[in-house]
């Protein structure tokens, strides 16, 4: 098992290297100039040249890559070309709001979609089922920014229950934190509620046709116990897979929600970095994201290996 783990870990190194190389080259091939982002539109070519020289952007691409990859190997992600701040510090400032938003959306997803999916499967073909399915179509079809604006208009502008925008970290108190994150979390969760409730319904329907469910009912168990103890437990594996993947998608795809609710998260930082051609910042974020995915896949592979010994010997 240890050798399998080591082998998989070693395989991750070339993957990360090729991701780094790909991202580096892609950014250098993209038109645009970080010096122009620093100096502004009215800068003269002489000013731009001086800035480029100072940032080392006048050096050959190969030597720029070598310098970057060697500092990465030492754990130094470099400094933003634009703000001159360490990119890890910038990511650290922004990752909290994004994670908070994703966790809140995931909580909404789980507490709303699971009962809805179970209910729809239980009342399969009935009015409740149709209502849940219609709701999930709406969740899939309506863009997040529309949902966000509607929630803001109703709950923030009209009812004034929530603020219209902004973010407060947990360090400023749980109340203010929750007050600001509830609406964006709800907006972001709509799509995932639709997805997970459909998945739950489909998975539950399949499980409820199984013999052991019929047996449970024949034993005279109540519907609640049959549904939640027997059926839902067995239907949980595909649901958990979707929830897990959904969480990763949320973290890497929250930019619209962050924009509508003005949350200073990672999504907006990436967009800002791209617009300003802030190479080290974009490289670091993409590399960290890729690293997270590699790590998650590694954990999944390892869990497969744990459950199926044949995988270890392949």
């Amino acid at each position: 098992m240890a050798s399998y783990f080591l082998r998989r870990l070693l395989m991750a190194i070339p993957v990360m290297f090729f991701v780094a190389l790909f991202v580096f080259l892609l950014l250098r091939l993209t038109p645009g100039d970080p010096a122009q982002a620093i100096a502004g539109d009215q800068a003269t070519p002489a000013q731009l040249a001086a800035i480029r020289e100072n940032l080392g952007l006048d050096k050959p691409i190969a030597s720029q890559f070598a310098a970057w990859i060697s500092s990465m190997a030492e754990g130094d992600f470099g400094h933003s070309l634009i703000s001159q701040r360490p990119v890890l510090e910038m990511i650290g400032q922004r990752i909290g709001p994004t994670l908070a938003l994703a966790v809140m959306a995931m909580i909404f997803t789980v507490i709303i979609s699971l009962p809805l999916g179970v209910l729809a499967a239980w009342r399969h073909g009935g009015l409740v089922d149709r209502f849940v399915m219609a709701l999930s179509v709406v969740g899939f079809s309506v863009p997040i920014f529309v949902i966000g604006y509607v929630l803001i208009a109703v709950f923030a502008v009209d009812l004034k229950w929530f603020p219209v925008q902004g973010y407060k970290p947990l360090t400023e108190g749980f109340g203010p934190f929750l007050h600001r994150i509830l609406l964006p979390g709800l907006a972001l969760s709509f799509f995932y509620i639709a997805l997970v409730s459909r998945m739950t319904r489909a998975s539950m329907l399949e499980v409820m046709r199984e013999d052991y469910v019929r047996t449970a009912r024949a034993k005279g168990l109540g519907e609640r116990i049959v549904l939640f103890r027997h059926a839902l437990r067995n239907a949980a594996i595909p649901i958990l897979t979707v929830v897990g993947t959904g969480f990763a998608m949320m973290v890497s795809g929250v930019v619209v929600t962050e924009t509508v609710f003005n949350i200073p998260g990672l999504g907006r930082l990436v967009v800002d970095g791209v617009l300003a051609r802030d190479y080290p910042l974009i490289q670091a974020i993409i590399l960290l994201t890729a690293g997270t995915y590699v790590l998650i896949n590694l954990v999944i592979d390892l869990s497969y290996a744990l459950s199926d010994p044949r995988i270890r010997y392949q």
Partner: protein
Amino acid sequence: MTFRFNTFGAVALLASSLHAMPAFAETTLNVVMQAPLRTLDPILSTAQIVRTHGFMVFDTLLGMDAKYNPQPQMADYGVSADKMTYTFTLRDGLKWHDGTPVTAEDCVASIKRWAANDGAGRTMMTYVASIEATSDKVLVIKLAKPFGQVLELLAKPSPVPPFMMPKRLAETPAGKQVAEMVGSGPFRFVAEQYRPGDQAVYLKNKDYKPRSEPMSWTAGGKVVNVDKVVWKAMPDMQTSINALQSGDVDLIEQVTIDLLPLLKTNDEIKTGAINALGSQVTGRFNHRLPPFDNPKVRQAAMYALDQDQLMQTAIGDGQYYKLCASVYGCDVPLASDAGSEYLKGSAKERLAKAKELLKASGYDGTPVLMMQPTDLTILSTQPIVAAERLREAGFKVDVAAMDWATLQSRKNSTQQVAQGGWNMLFTYWGVSGIWNPTVHALLDGSGSETAWSGWPRNARVEELRTAFLTASTLDDQKKIAREIQQIAYDEGFYFNAGEFQSVAAWRANLKNLQPGPLTLFWGVGK
């Protein structure tokens, strides 16, 4: 039913209990700025947002008042009878934000750094014999040859204003950003709360001693009436408007014109222009590449384009834009109607003239590569409208859509179109950056690599720009500026596509917002 009532009741109770209600004694001004603040060095950057940040943290030796006159700010000044020696005496009580006193040595180093980075500053230095600190509080600029713009340049609020900083920062090498935000201005920058591209926080500088004269643009006493100013970047304008209406923010520096009706019905919100100067939209031709290397073709293009059409599509509401011939801005002292014949007549009449000129020019059908920035609302429509007008006049036009960052980079290319060059682009300039021939980058007629993109070449314009530097009276300056303007039209330096006014929106409880050449945060209170 009971369940539903209880649920909604609980949510309402929870939501209202979550309201943060701290009774802060400090007054905070929350502002949505027109662009995110990503970089901080106001000498290295020409961006408007960085300049506004510069005026928060740093101060200038002289300020510019509402009548465009240089006035004492950090220093009082004297000029010798022969106008060859300028003496500046720092006023008492000036301190950097780190507590050390402001010295003349600091200011000498700051002027040198500014002059190395600013086009007009570089020009000035070619006339300067020496800049020296003669004591802790006195610095002297001696000229080698007559130069009439010393005070105007040291007072200019346009890019790049000569901000003063401690010598240790001012000696930062060329091309490198300063490492700290230590100025002597009315606000201190809170580095710990800065999130590049998202938030900047400024605290009132309690050590700042404002001048006793009344506030007037960047001159006079900069009296700060709030404890804290927070700049927030909001990429979505609707979110900004929601935040203003709910009281989360106090001021939006620049509101999209088409959303103004949403605010005008709200009694708690006021709208108007706090930036006293507008911005000129400019259609720049690349003089190095065909077809715009031919002056007749450029003239044909100028007749084809229409100020009103371009402004209508970009701004829409006529009360927020002006049409005038002046290349220096519609309402500045040097404004004139020279070259207005290129703008007169109906769109239809001028199109007929354009066709006639294009035919006579020998235009061979070379396509015009028009760059269109799709992510900059204010400039995304002009290329489409202009391309259509040029096509109607007989040009072949290709519109290349790209993001603003790509456009900014591509505009510096002097290559052929196929190798990444370009023929025409639209951009805009704050009037404070174009109000005379010295600072107006698009009137550079040197055609040199160091000039702003487009590279027109005209020896007479260069002679006149040099003459302007030594002109001693406003009448002489006007005469020179007028001739330059006429040549700029005749030679098609660029198409003046009109001047728009940015509109701000603020909570009605804000008092004493100061008009200025940029958004100013002194004077205002709540």
